[in-house]
């Protein structure tokens, strides 16, 4: 059995760790509230923008646009959105795994990592990670960053460097449920089941797609960044909460052990005194 001094030291150390977890939990909770609020406005924008270009891609004459035409796939771009830091449960692992599973279909992929964790993950697996990478977007998402990612994708796509583009992000359902998703964004594929009536385009369908795709795509990317950021904070909050509970359990066990040990020492001392007195008689 460990000494009393040792147990005491362990209790203090666990208590200190628990304090850090409590603080991280509170920080994540307040960041989650902020991120959730942003998501409320971003989500309609992101969904609407994708719907508009998807609908347009089904219209007559759209198939000639560079963004709609399907090419023979040689290179596939993956934008993998993860967090910059750990201590958020399985959030980073889930999304990188999901992206990896989609990549393992034998594609020639180019990875654009958003967040340090996805960069590290794919670097370790000797994947083709592009020089272009983004960090620091998990806490504060700016629209300009989404625009930047989108412009990069579109430049590469038009230049023929990539023939397909996917975005891997985590979709926020509730605080407890996050779904890692891999979504195809280029070329644009409409949902053929959706029917809609005669739509006119100003100036015409080709010019509309040329202008609207970059604008709508950056809004969609902004949406995915916002979703991922909410998920990261939620995941961090939950994992810190459970870490806090675990710490409490450990402290309880250690305190019990400490008390038993003390009781044991007292009993032993009494025994010694009694047996010493008996020996003198």
């Amino acid at each position, binding site marked *: 059995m460990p000494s009393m001094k040792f147990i005491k030291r362990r209790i203090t150390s666990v208590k200190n760790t628990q304090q850090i977890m409590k603080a991280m939990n509170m920080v994540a909770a307040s960041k989650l509230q902020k991120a959730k609020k*942003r998501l409320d*406005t*971003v989500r*309609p*924008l992101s969904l*609407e*923008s994708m719907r*508009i270009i998807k609908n*347009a891609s089904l219209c007559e004459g759209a198939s000639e646009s560079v963004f709609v035409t399907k090419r023979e796939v040689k290179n596939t771009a993956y934008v993998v959105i993860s967090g910059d830091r750990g201590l958020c449960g399985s959030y980073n692992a889930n999304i990188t795994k999901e992206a990896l599973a989609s990549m393992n279909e034998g594609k020639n992929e180019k990875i654009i990592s958003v967040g340090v964790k996805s960069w590290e993950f794919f670097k370790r697996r000797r994947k083709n990670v592009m020089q272009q990478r983004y960090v620091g977007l998990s806490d504060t998402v700016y*629209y300009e960053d*989404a*625009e930047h990612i989108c412009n990069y994708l579109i430049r590469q796509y038009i230049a023929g460097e990539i023939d397909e583009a996917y975005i891997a992000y985590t979709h926020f359902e509730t605080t407890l449920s996050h779904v890692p998703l891999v979504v195809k964004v280029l070329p644009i594929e409409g949902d053929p089941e959706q029917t*809609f*009536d*005669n*739509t*006119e*385009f*100003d*100036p015409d369908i080709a*010019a*509309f797609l040329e*202008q*609207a795709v970059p*604008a*709508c795509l*950056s*809004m969609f990317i*902004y949406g995915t960044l916002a979703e991922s950021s909410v998920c990261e904070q939620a995941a961090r909050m939950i994992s810190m909460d459970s870490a806090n509970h675990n710490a409490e359990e450990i402290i309880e066990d250690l305190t019990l052990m400490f008390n038993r040990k003390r009781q044991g020492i007292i009993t032993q001392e009494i025994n010694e005194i009694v047996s010493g007195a008996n020996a003198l008689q």
Partner: protein
Amino acid sequence: MSKFRLRIITPDVIKVDEEVDMVILRSMTGDMGILPGHEAGSAVLDYGVLRILDDSGERRLAVYGGVAEIRNDVVTVLTSAAEWPDEINRSDAEEDLDSAKKRLESHHDAMELKDQVTVRRSLVRIEVSAYPLLNKSSESKG
């Protein structure tokens, strides 16, 4: 008079979501007026003034590019930024315009496109800021 729903969404905020009588957009090919019952369609927007007409009169909003969609009497405008007149600092806009114009004259090629965008944006801002939201005060009186 029948109305239709207008939604103007920017990345940061849902700017407008209300029933209006008429809206005039600045599309790439010119101004486009939309009344209730308009044919379904989509348009690319230019930098320009968006005019909203409803019971309380006319309001103007600066819109910097984006996409508009008309469907089933719902007009959705998606744009990277939109500003009400009272959100625009006119002297700042004028300053931006002057400095961008000066830079364009001195030909810094790498920055040229950016400066041209600044000039266009500043012109729109200055125009919109000339139409403050008068109806706000009349609403409070009424």
